[in-house]
């Protein structure tokens, strides 16, 4: 009887130590999970940029109005031309390249590169890429449907040692 009770005590002690260690591991994991806050903050900036980009009014017009980037994407999907016979896809690419290069400076900043891809019906319509890709990035995804065509914009900015 005495032997049995001692064995029980030993087992209880072991279980207690395992529980304490498990609690500490849980606390550690909880801290690890709560870390990517900064990523979310900076992605908000990328999301705002994509929203503003889509609303930008280009110099390409149809019979009614000057087209926004969003409308231009739709015209490019349908292989339509501007009123002055310019190709809408060329105008779209030129505008997007210029806007991104002015908005995200990769020369004198921690930004090392960026990439923007427009997917139409999951097929790549346009891709603009500059600089280098790194594992440290922020990004935004914007989806919309226009004239029944689902479109997705994936924008990613790559930073060099953002945590410094």
């Amino acid at each position, binding site marked *: 009887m005495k032997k049995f009770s001692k064995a029980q005590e030993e087992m209880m002690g072991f279980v207690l130590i395992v529980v304490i260690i498990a609690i500490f591991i849980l606390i550690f994991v909880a801290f690890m999970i709560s870390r990517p806050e900064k990523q979310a903050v900076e992605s*908000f900036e990328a999301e705002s940029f994509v*929203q503003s980009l889509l609303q930008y009014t280009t110099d390409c017009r149809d019979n009614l109005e000057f087209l926004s980037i969003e409308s231009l994407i739709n015209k490019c999907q349908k292989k339509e031309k501007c009123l002055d016979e310019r190709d809408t896809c060329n105008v779209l690419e030129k505008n997007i390249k210029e806007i991104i290069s002015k908005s995200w400076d990769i020369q004198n900043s921690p930004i090392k590169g960026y990439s923007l891809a427009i997917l139409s019906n999951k097929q790549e319509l346009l891709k603009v890429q500059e600089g280098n890709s790194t594992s440290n990035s922020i990004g935004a995804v914007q989806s919309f449907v226009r004239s029944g065509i689902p479109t997705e914009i994936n924008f990613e900015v790559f930073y060099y040692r953002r945590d410094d």
Partner: protein
Amino acid sequence: MKKAQLKIQQMAFMLIAITLLFALAGMFVLVFMFSGLKESATALNERNALLLVSRLANSPEFSCGESFGMLKLNCVDEDKAIILKQNSNDYKNFWGVAGIEIQKIYPENNIECNLGNYPNCGLITIYSEKNKGVSSSNFISLCRKTSSENGIYDKCEIAKLIVFPRSEQ
């Protein structure tokens, strides 16, 4: 050594071992907590600053509302901004910030706007106090009504709304 003494010694060793375990684990948690504290504070400040910029851009004094088609987020009415600049003294304490600027990003233009050169300019300083701190900014659409040979149309450009929070905030 008596059996009782052996038991006491065993207990003492066990207590020391458990205390050491707690101390080490506690130190580990504290070091981890404090290493992330500065980063969390910075992230929180950045988030608050970005939220402040977003709140300003979507406030009735700046926002496009439904003037340019459907309701747009992060869209600032350029005509409202230039009029606000003229009446900035009335609004200095309204937003509780040290300065508000709108800088056109594309097309790039650094000429300060006034009623004489508007809209052929690129920087609208709504107001600016002398002691401005570190600014925070976010991308916005800067829209206005303009005209061509075919009539009036909506023109939206890409700009940054730059806000200088007051240091006591």
